[in-house]
Every structure is written in C-alpha cells, then in structure tokens.
C-alpha cells in the first residue's frame, strides 16, 4: 500500500514521541523510592535481625534517601510539563478515573509518611548534630512510633512502586503498556532496586547478606514477569504482537530496544549468579574485599537493569499503537 498523509503532527507521526528520558527517570526513581520505603521497613520489622534497633546500627540513611530520590524523580516529571508554572492545577481537582490524578494525590500522603519515618529512624548520634530544635524534638517525639511508621511505609512503598506501572498500563492506545502484568513488573523491579540500594548503603554485613538473599528472589520474580509480559503480548492480537517486535529485531531502527533486552538478559541473571556465589560462600565476621565487591557490583547491575527496563518500556510503548491505517 502506498500512503500519503496531509496534516501530520511530528509528536504523533510516524510514531508517538510524547514522553522521553525525563518520564523514564521519574518512573525509575519513583519505583526505587517505593522500594526503599518497603525494604527499610522490612529491615526494621523483620524478626531475627542481628543488627539491633535501627536507631543505633542499621542504615538510617535509607529512609532519608527515599524522599530525596522521589523529589528528584518528581523534578524530572515537572521538567516534562509544558506549563511548568501550572503544576498546582493537579491539586485543583480529583479525577477518580485518572491514574495521573491518583499519583498527584498519593504523593501528598506518601511524603509526610516518608519524612516522619526518616525522622523517627534518626539515630542519637545524628540527632545531636541537628541544630534545629523543632526537627530534633520532632525526631525525639516520633522515635517511639517507629514500628508503626515502618508498617505504613511498607504498605505505601508497595503502592508507590506499583503505581508507576499502573500509570502506563491504563493506556489502551499503547498495546505494549496496556497489560495488567506491567504494574507487577514495575513493583518487582522497584523492590529489587530498593534492595540493591540497601545492600550498597548498609554497613552491617548481616543486613547486606539478608538483602542479597532477598534480591535473588526479587530478580527471579522480575525475570519471570518480563517473560510473562512478552508471552502475553505474543499471544495477543496483531497490535500486541507488533508491540514487542522492536525487542526482537536488531535492525537499525529498533536496535536500542534489541540492545535493551540483551542488556536485561545479561545483567539480571549475572546479578543472580554473583549474589548466589556470595550467599553460598563461607562467611567470616568481617566482610571480605571480594565479598563486598560481589555484593555491591551485583547491586549496581540490578540498578542498571531497573533503569533499562524503564527506559525501554517508556520509549517502546510509544512505538506501539493501532496504526494510522486501521479500519
């Protein structure tokens, strides 16, 4: 067929190119922040931990890092807005059918929870360095409620991570995104990257090992969900089948997508192997240099994998559609 069109817009023709790296970064950091909320809460609440109360030895930096990363992500999302000075309009209405509207309002719930949790988790040696009396007194007052705040953070971390996938999955016009599996992939990826940052930041060996073990299962789940996502599209209609083709076509136009699936196929299994080597090896009280290298480098691989998943899906999703010439 020969096709000529008079009146195309560059943003939608020949393919939709609306959202770019800014949205991908937001989705990655949003998922990571959710993962950090949940993982740090798990670290505090898990029975049998050997690192004592969080205030004294465990990684208090994680609850502080979560709102910072979410803020950076939201900053990139704000950069993507065409009318940056009109952001307040998100809060002038609530649209129950709009996932973007939920997202805007959920942030208002999540931020206070994150900040209260971060304050409650501050250890005494950090609190003595705080000069602002209000912050110091608030942190002291919140410390007894740390367990309750951790439970809330565990739940809302899951909600934040899964939300980033729900946002994309509701776009019926973009077959690659329009899958109920996608939120689960973003959830698994968010939790996995959260565990990876826990491994990097934590000083305590027991914490590092616990999250290394946990991350093996999270990555396995992530890989299974990726396979299910592709399988679901492969068995779907023509538009869904076409939506995954960029990942399996190494031609010039689709090479970045092909490369992304190759990268994910290398870094995540490699991370599993490295983690497996570490958790099955002999352990002394101190972390050996090689052990530290295995744990930290596998965690970096997980972060790379998580970022690649967001970038690949944001861009490839916009390539997918029901075409200009469809009856």
């Amino acid at each position, binding site marked *: 067929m020969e096709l000529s069109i008079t009146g195309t817009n*560059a943003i939608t023709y020949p393919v939709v190119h609306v959202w770019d790296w800014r949205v991908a970064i937001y989705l990655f950091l949003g998922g990571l922040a959710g993962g950090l909320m949940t993982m740090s809460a798990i670290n505090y609440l898990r029975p049998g931990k050997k690192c004592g109360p969080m205030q004294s030895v465990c990684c208090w930096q994680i609850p502080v890092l979560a709102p910072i990363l979410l803020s950076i992500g939201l900053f990139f999302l704000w950069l993507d807005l065409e009318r940056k000075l009109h952001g307040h309009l998100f809060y002038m209405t609530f649209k129950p059918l709009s996932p973007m509207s939920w997202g805007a309002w959920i942030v208002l719930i999540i931020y206070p929870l994150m900040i209260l949790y971060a304050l409650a988790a501050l250890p005494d040696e950090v609190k003595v360095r705080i000069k602002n009396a209000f912050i110091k007194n608030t942190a002291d007052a919140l410390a007894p409620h740390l367990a309750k705040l951790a439970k809330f953070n565990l739940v809302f971390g899951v909600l934040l991570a899964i939300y980033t996938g729900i946002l994309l999955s509701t776009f019926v016009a973009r077959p690659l995104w329009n899958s109920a599996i996608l939120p689960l992939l973003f959830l698994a990826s968010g939790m996995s990257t959260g565990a990876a940052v826990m491994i990097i930041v934590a000083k305590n060996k027991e914490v590092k090992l616990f999250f290394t073990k946990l991350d093996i299962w999270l990555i396995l789940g992530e890989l299974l969900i990726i396979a299910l996502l592709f399988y679901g599209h492969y068995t779907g209609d023509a538009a869904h089948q076409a939506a995954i083709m960029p990942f399996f076509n190494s031609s010039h136009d689709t090479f970045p997508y092909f490369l992304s699936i190759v990268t994910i196929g290398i870094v995540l299994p490699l991370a599993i192997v490295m983690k497996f080597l570490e958790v099955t090896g002999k352990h002394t009280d101190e972390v050996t240099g090689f052990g530290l290298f295995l744990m930290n480098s596998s965690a970096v691989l997980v972060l790379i994998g998580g970022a690649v998943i967001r970038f690949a899906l944001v861009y490839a999703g916009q390539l997918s559609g029901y075409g200009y010439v469809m009856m």
Partner: protein
Amino acid sequence: MPRYAMVIDQSRCIGCMACVVACKRENDVPPEHYRTRVLEMVQGTFPDLTTEMRSELCNHCDKAPCVNICPTGASHHEEDGTVQIDRKKCVGCKACITSCPYNARHINKELGVADKCTFCQHRLIEGKKPACVATCVGGSRIFGDLDDPNSEISVLLRKTSHRVLKKSIGTGPNVYYINQYPTRS
C-alpha cells in the same frame, strides 16, 4: 441539547485538502501543527488499483480515553457530546496525547497546551457548521445532530452502511465513515 457527530462520505472526497487549510485558518493552528488530516491510500497492483481518501480528526468519543486520563479535568465532555479542552486547566502533561488511539492530539507549542479538533465549537455557538464542513467542496464532510431524527446525518446513517474507526478499542467514536469500498475478495 444536541448530540453532535460528523459523517465522512469518502466517495465524495476529491483530496483538495481545503478542509485542512480551512481548519488551520479558522482556529489559528500554528504552521507545524494540524487538527485534521487527509490520508490518501493506494492499494493493489497496477493496473488493478484502488484509491481511498480518508479525512481524520478527533472522534469526540463517548468513552474518550483522553478525558479519563486527564488529571486536571482540562479535557472534558460538553453537554453536546463533544470533547473539549479547557486551556486554563491544562498543565501540558501530554497524557491525553499518548492515550488517544487516533493520534488526534498534539501540543500547541506556542501556548504549551494540548490541542485538537473542537468541531469548531465557537462556530457551533453561532449556529454555523465547522469550518472544514463549510468549506468542503465535494460535500464529503457532513455535520449535524444525532438526536434530531430529521437531521442530514441521522438520515444518512439510517440509509447507509457505515463504520467507525478502531471500533474494537471501544471508545465510542462520533465520526462515522460511509462504507464505499467493499472488502476485496
């Protein structure tokens, strides 16, 4: 209250593109953007060829994904069934552009807001037809009120076989196409 819709009789389109020009002129659409387009599709193998001219625009869907996804309520349904954008409420998040299966939206870079066909709402208020309909020399674009059984489009839709684009997506489009080309066997 009327329920506006458009019928496209493809057999009457001569591909003059006057609708595209009239739309841009009427609505001050920036040079690099369009609210309506015309597709010219040539199919088959020479000499057994068919040509199809098809005008496309916002379908003003009953279940518009753009209205559902809009976080600020800028994209909304009017009482007359049309989908409109309240520019004062639009933040330019572009979710509506991504959500439209018809690729009927774009960003007006001069204003930083989403933009699309309005069925020339300002003309409807004055009792006029949309600019593309008024200018169509072949009478390919027909506009009217679906709730009026005697309107031209109601009569046309009763008398002819017609279709909507991408019906299976379930958005309930309000731009109808009269079937001209039977399926080739």
